[in-house]
Each structure stands twice: as structure tokens, then as C-alpha cells.
């Protein structure tokens, strides 16, 4: 019987035959911590009497959640990270480099076939390039910093085949929101997903990352895709690390196989306060908005900013809306500057903030007011997520967010994409 990508990666990292359900202790290729979780990991490291990091080239710290620091207490926590990184010779990405999950792939830190853990739930993003990556807690990050290993249950895999072709004005974000609505917030708990099919094949790597990023929103441990020539070209441009991709066996044993046809898919909206309360834009009533946010590890990439710039080109953001853009990395911000997208968006009335998490996590750079409706390209719309439990967050694609920013209400982007 053949094996899934997850099973084959765990076999490689343990050196023994494994199957779904096995408990293994596996060697980790890369471990990542961000500023919301790393200070606690450092405390755990010290409490466990950790002396040195097992391999400083395999541990990375990234300051993105509160960057630049909005508070004195957070500045102290950032300094704990800086001091530890200096003492242990770790790479630390300072404020302004960008969101952790964008940097892990765009800086070539993760390659296909890797086993990666990160103290952030959206670590599953790197599945889009064929790495098994998953979120862990701070203490587990500390254990990996000491030992280079962690225990895992090799997950069962659900295969999701996406057939057909995406219509105009419908994006990878709409696919994953639609899947969340269909499968539910706990639909794949404890399982890995393999996303496949002609729709995935046609997407660019940047667009695929959006889908894997949100695998955790349907409970999954990992959101994997089979590397193809686009993946290999994309990765090779970014790293000198040698790598050997892993492919699923044709007769791999899946827990189940789900097939969706994307030909009739429409722009999707996740309603507050759940990621899986999803409706087609064709089925919603008028929803006025006060803030529109474009960015995050889900949708802050060059293609997302380009799409928004095309929509707002020569137009004005609605006077009742604050349109906030956070590029996912410095590299993306520079590209958006060179291409003129920043100028287009700012001229239309948009606001750029530091590359990083922006207002997604509710600490700075655009906390909504009471009763505000926010439309966002982020991955979560929980009550209080953006820092105010009296605000209402709707999730959508970058195109829908940009069109909504213009009209002051949730707006179908297809009419702007003639």
C-alpha cells in the first residue's frame, strides 16, 4: 500500500517505516518563533535548564506581531528575544522584515521535504511548497531548541481534489473560505490535508500559500501540496540548500478523498465571528464597512497588492472607510513601490503600515471601534481578534476587500475586473 506525503516525510525524518497513527520522535529541520510566543519559549528553555541551542542554523526568531512595538512592556519582551538570539548566535528578523510565514518561505529557510515546527498556528503555510510544517506551543519550541526533536503522531491524510477552472474575480482565498464553509472549523482536526487537482496546478506558488495557510482553520495539522516545476523554480531562486522533494504514492491510503468543482465558484465571505460561517457574495445583503484591511500571512503578497492596486486605480476609497495595507515582507513592499502599486493605493486614500502582521492580532495599527464592520484578508474573524470585542470582522479575498474599500460596503469585485 502506498504512502501519503506526511507518512513519507516522517519516514525520512525518523529513518524507519511509519504509517498514519504511529507515534514518532522525529528530527526537525527548522524551528521558528515569533514575538507573541518566543519570550515564553525562552522562559521554558531556561526553566528546563537549557544550555545551548542544538543547531543555531535551524532556529529562527521573527519580530512581526507587534512591530514596531506599541508598548513599553512589549519592547522588553522583544529585548528578551534579541538578547537570547545574540547569546546563542540565532538569526533574528527585526521589525520591518515581514510576517514570519512569508519570510520562512521567501527567504529560502524552508525547502520541500522538510519537517518544520513553528510557535504559531499558521506554520502550516509551508505545506504549499511540500514541507510538513505545523504549529506548536512555546514549551515545545523550547524542547526543539534544546534537543532538535519533537514527538508527533503521524496524521491520517484527507485528499482534497479541486477540479475545473477558477472563474474571473475568484481567487485562492475564495477556495479556502469555501472549503472552510463546507468542511467546518473542526472538519480535519488531527489530520493532514493534501490539496491537489488542476486548480492547484494552475495557481502560482504565492497563491497556493494562501490555501495552505488556512488549513488550520479547518483543524488540520498540515496543508500539503505536491511540489511541481513552479514550486521547484520558486524555491531554487531563494535558497542554496540542497533538497529532495517528496511526492505521494499514486496508491497512497487516504482517510477520505473529497472532490470540489471550482467552475461555478463565486467570491466568498466569512461572517463574524466564525471562519466557517461562509456565504457567497451573491447571497448577501448590504453590509456597510468602516475598515478594510489587506495583508497578513494569508494575503499580504505581491499578487494581492497588485490586485488591489488594479481595482482602486484612479478611484477614491470611501470617506467612511480606513483602508489599511500591510505588505507581508520588505521584499514585497519594495516590489510594490517599484511597480507603482503603493502610489496607486496611497493616491486612492489607502494607508500603508510596517511589513508584518499589521492589525490582524489586535494590538496595533488599526484597532476597530465599537460596532464597526471590518472586511479583512486575514485568516481569523473571532470576536475580539482585532482588539475590540464589539467589532465585526468579515473575511474575503484581496479583490473583494479593495472593491469594498471603494464603496464603503461589502462589494463584489467582479464588476471592477472588466
Amino acid at each position: 500500500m502506498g504512502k501519503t506525503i506526511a507518512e513519507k516525510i516522517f519516514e525520512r525524518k525518523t529513518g524507519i517505516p511509519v504509517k498514519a497513527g504511529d507515534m514518532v520522535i522525529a528530527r526537525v529541520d527548522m524551528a521558528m518563533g515569533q514575538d507573541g510566543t518566543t519570550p515564553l519559549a525562552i522562559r521554558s528553555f531556561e526553566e528546563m535548564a537549557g544550555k545551548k541551542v542544538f543547531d543555531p542554523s535551524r532556529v529562527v526568531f521573527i519580530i512581526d506581531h507587534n512591530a514596531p512595538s506599541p508598548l513599553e512592556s512589549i519592547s522588553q519582551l522583544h529585548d528578551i528575544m534579541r538578547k537570547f538570539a545574540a547569546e546563542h548566535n540565532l538569526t533574528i528578523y527585526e521589525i520591518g522584515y515581514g510576517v514570519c510565514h512569508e519570510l520562512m518561505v521567501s527567504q529560502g529557510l524552508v525547502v520541500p521535504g522538510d519537517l518544520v515546527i513553528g510557535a504559531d498556528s499558521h506554520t502550516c503555510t509551508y505545506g504549499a511548497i511540500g514541507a510538513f510544517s505545523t504549529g506548536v506551543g512555546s514549551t515545545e519550541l523550547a524542547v526543539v531548541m534544546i534537543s532538535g526533536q519533537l514527538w508527533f503522531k503521524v496524521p491520517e491524510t484527507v485528499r482534497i481534489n479541486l477540479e475545473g477552472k477558477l472563474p474571473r474575480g475568484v481567487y485562492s482565498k475564495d477556495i479556502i473560505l469555501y472549503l472552510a464553509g463546507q468542511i467546518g472549523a473542526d472538519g480535519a482536526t488531527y489530520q493532514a490535508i493534501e490539496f491537489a487537482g488542476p486548480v492547484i496546478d494552475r495557481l502560482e506558488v504565492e497563491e497556493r500559500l494562501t490555501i495552505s495557510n488556512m488549513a488550520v482553520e479547518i483543524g488540520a495539522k498540515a496543508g500539503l501540496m505536491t511540489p511541481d516545476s513552479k514550486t521547484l523554480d520558486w524555491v531554487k531562486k531563494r535558497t542554496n540548500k540542497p533538497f529532495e522533494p517528496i511526492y505521494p504514492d499514486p496508491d497512497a491510503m487516504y482517510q477520505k478523498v473529497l472532490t470540489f468543482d471550482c467552475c461555478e465558484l463565486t467570491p466568498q465571505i466569512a461572517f463574524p465571528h466564525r471562519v466557517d460561517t461562509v456565504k457567497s457574495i451573491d447571497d448577501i445583503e448590504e453590509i456597510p464597512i468602516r475598515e478594510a484591511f489587506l495583508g497578513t500571512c494569508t494575503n499580504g503578497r505581491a499578487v494581492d497588492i497588485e490586485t488591489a492596486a488594479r481595482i482602486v486605480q484612479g478611484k477614491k476609497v470611501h470617506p467612511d472607510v480606513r483602508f489599511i495595507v500591510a505588505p507581508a515582507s520588505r521584499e514585497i513592499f519594495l516590489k510594490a513601490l517599484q511597480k507603482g502599486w503603493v502610489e496607486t493605493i496611497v493616491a486612492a486614500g489607502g494607508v500603508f503600515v510596517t511589513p508584518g502582521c499589521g492589525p490582524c492580532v489586535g494590538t496595533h495599527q488599526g484597532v476597530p471601534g465599537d460596532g464597526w464592520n471590518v472586511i479583512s484578508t486575514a485568516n481569523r474573524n473571532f470576536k475580539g481578534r482585532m482588539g475590540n470585542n464589539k467589532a465585526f470582522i468579515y473575511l474575503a479575498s484581496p479583490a473583494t476587500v479593495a472593491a469594498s474599500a471603494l464603496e464603503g460596503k461589502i462589494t463584489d469585485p467582479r464588476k471592477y475586473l472588466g
Partner: protein
Amino acid sequence: MILKGKAHVFGDDINTDYIISGKYKFKTLDMNELGKHVMEDIDPNFSQKVKPGDFIVAGKNFGCGSSREQAPRALLASGIRGIVAVTFARIFFRNAINCGLVALECDTSQIKNGDEIEVDLASGKITDLIQGLVIHAAPLPDVMIQILNEGGLISYFKKHGSFPSASRSR
């Protein structure tokens, strides 16, 4: 290990932002401070209702959302000893055990808010002492009982310098 406490009942899909909001958790590592704000966005006076040793009883997918270990740690600091839920989200479940917070899965539909419950960790037997109701939770894998018995992964690792060995886990 036999534990006893009052049940605080919640529904399905209680996420880690509800357990401890991002607006607090980024500010400090002081878990006693974070403990004052647990569940605040869905039950504003929750932390004042908790007595040390109490349990949260919930529906499916408890702890979904972010990987913040502050969620189980702040619950412990608030006095909560354990969670009994229909199912848990994966990362929260690992974090809970690693921090020494008991987490058991069973049918929780009959437990009422305010009921006194008794939890036998080794067997997974849960007794609602008010209703005289006995529920059997799926027993925890050995690796997790070993970690819980040491009070969490930090004390386990400090003492043994490696992982517990076991055949079943998640």
C-alpha cells in the same frame, strides 16, 4: 490522580482568542495577570467565578485558533485545573498537557453549569456528583499521563532530559 471541582459550561469552538485575548497576551509573561482576563470576551466576569480546582466543560473543538501557550497557562493561573470537552483542537491539546492542564475528551452534553464533578485521570472516569452521572472519557495516551504526572513537559524534561516513550499519542 483524582480531581474534584465545579463545572463551568461553555459551547462548541471556544477559540484561544476567547480564552486569552491577543490584546493582553502580547503584553506580559505574568500569567497571574493574564489569568484575570480569561474568557473575558464571552463571559466578562468569568475569572471571578472560578475557584481553584474548577473545570471547564465544553463542546467540540475546544481551543481552536492560535498556538498561544498562554491560553492553557492563563487558565491554570485563573484556578482552572482541567478541561473536559467533546473534542479539542490539536495544538491546544498538546499545549494543555505540556503545561500540566488536564484535558479529557467525552460526551459532555449532560453536565450542567455549576455541577460538582470528579475526574479520575488514570481511568478517564468522570462523575457528575450532583446528578450521580458517570461518563467515561477516552483514556489519555501513556505519554500524556507521564507528562501530567510530572506537572508538565518542563518538569518532565528537566527531570528526564528526554521525551517520555510511548506507543500512542497525537
